[in-house]
């Protein structure tokens, strides 16, 4: 049985949690103060995910902020960055617009977050 300490990143509290893991399964969790912490710990053990935020350059050279609509697998972050960096969308993209659907088959879209 393994005990793993982790800092929750779901909110600014950053609870220091301890998970008891056996055979790759989380048996129990201590230190979280809410359900989201439990969710985070579970994901960290099985398939760590992260919200990806970055920028994209438009055709005309404008810089727009973008994010993944849902958290994406941590190990795919750099691959997804490559996809976003290769984009040159038109200058008239708007707040909330989807630039890539289901990026790298993760189920997450890449959406514009700046005005």
């Amino acid at each position, binding site marked *: 049985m393994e005990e793993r300490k982790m800092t929750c990143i779901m909110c600014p509290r950053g609870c220091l949690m301890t998970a008891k893991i056996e055979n790759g399964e989380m048996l129990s969790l201590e230190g979280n103060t809410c359900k989201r912490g439990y969710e985070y710990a579970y994901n960290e053990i099985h398939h760590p995910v992260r919200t990806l935020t970055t*920028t*994209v*350059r438009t055709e005309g050279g404008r*810089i727009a902020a973008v994010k993944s609509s849902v958290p994406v697998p941590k190990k795919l972050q750099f691959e997804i960055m490559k996809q976003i*960096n290769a984009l040159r969308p038109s200058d008239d993209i708007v707040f909330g617009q989807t630039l890539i659907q289901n990026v790298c088959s993760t189920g997450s879209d890449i959406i514009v977050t700046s005005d």
Partner: protein
Amino acid sequence: MFDVVVIGAGICGAMTARLLTEYGQKVCILERCPDVAMGTTKANSSIVHAGFDAEPGSLKARLNVRGSVMMEEIARQLGVKYRRIGALVVALGEEDKKTLSDLLEKGGINGVSGLEILERDELIKLEPGIADEVLCALHAPTSALVCPYELCIAAVGSAMDNGAELKLSFEVDKIERTDKGYIVGAGDKSVSARCVINCAGVYADEIARLVGDESFSIRPRRGEYLILDKECGNTVSHTVFRCPDEMGKGVLVTPTVDGNLFLGPTATDIDDKEDTSTTPEGFASIRARAVSQVKGIDFSKIIASFAGLRATGNTGDFIINMPLEGFVNVAAIESPGLSSAPAIAEYVRDMLEESGVEMRKDPNFKAERKSLHRFSTLSIEEKNAIIADRPEYGHIVCRCEGVSEGEILEAIRSNPRPSDVDGIKRRTRTGMGRCQGGFCTPYVIGLLARETGVDYGEISKFGGESLINIGRTKSDL
């Protein structure tokens, strides 16, 4: 072919080039750095000394006193700042008191006016901020402040506006003597002239050696400085010195022409003519000395620190001579170099004239040059009239120093033209405030890129390899 090549666009080269242009010479200034005023001229105490400190009979004494008298009018012509606030040399003990009476005497012989020794009760009326341990002081009312690089830039600009040429990034490595004069080379570039004036600062000995003159050597003496926020500008109202020692005039505490508080310098002899790094020992030394002269210095308000190198020669005096016909050395110009610069120019002109070069005052020489800082001195109505016509004067780029886009553009478009961020900084004060360019630099880069046609990503801090950004995002690094 030029009449005169001036090697070095520091304060001596600038003043000399301008005066010789005024006297009918066709001048070419050769500067090894990407901008003017990049050596000692941009990192010194900025004081126009009264002249009591130099040895009577020396060139330093004669040229300092003469330069000090000339400076106010030159500053007015060039449209640069000048403040005559006077200086106090403080005594902390009996030894110092003796030094003060020696200085008083020297000053008298050198022809400095207004010198007097003030006892403590008189002194604190004049300067309440003086430290409690100070016993008395020598008061030199003719001591003044300038901004040395502002002065240098304006002098070069004035020379250029009157026909002088400037070649930057021209690092002289060869000087060939011909029957007509000299061919001065840098790599595969060359310029020829009848006369050469060697104003190469810490490198003056190496330039002299190019024509076979090995009679002197220059060793760099590094001095560190601290600048404090303008909030502290009223800590003292005079330039306050400690007594000088064998290494120089010692640490001073002074307001600047712009209203900052300025402390320094240290004095360390080094070997590397490129080493302008600051040190923790230097900071500590400045702080320790400054508090012995002035009280109430708020060190939490330091906004910048830097160091400069003085060209210390091995003879103790300025080395201004003509070892070969038409070749003039202006070397070992350590303190009081800045103060002496206008007089050094005169001295060089006279030396050339005596050697047979015809000097004819050009009636078309335009002595006056508009200040790059004049916008801030205008009334609100005058400013609004300008903004109505040129809206870029209403767009403030440097919040800390209140500099508008219009002023920055004017600086970019005036001789000598800058091509990097520090060049804008020295011409307009953008980036010299309390945020030290944190807010304005991205905008300044944009203006430079637009005006010079250089890509945003290729703009540097001060030329050479000092790029600010290394490529764009979204590219393969």
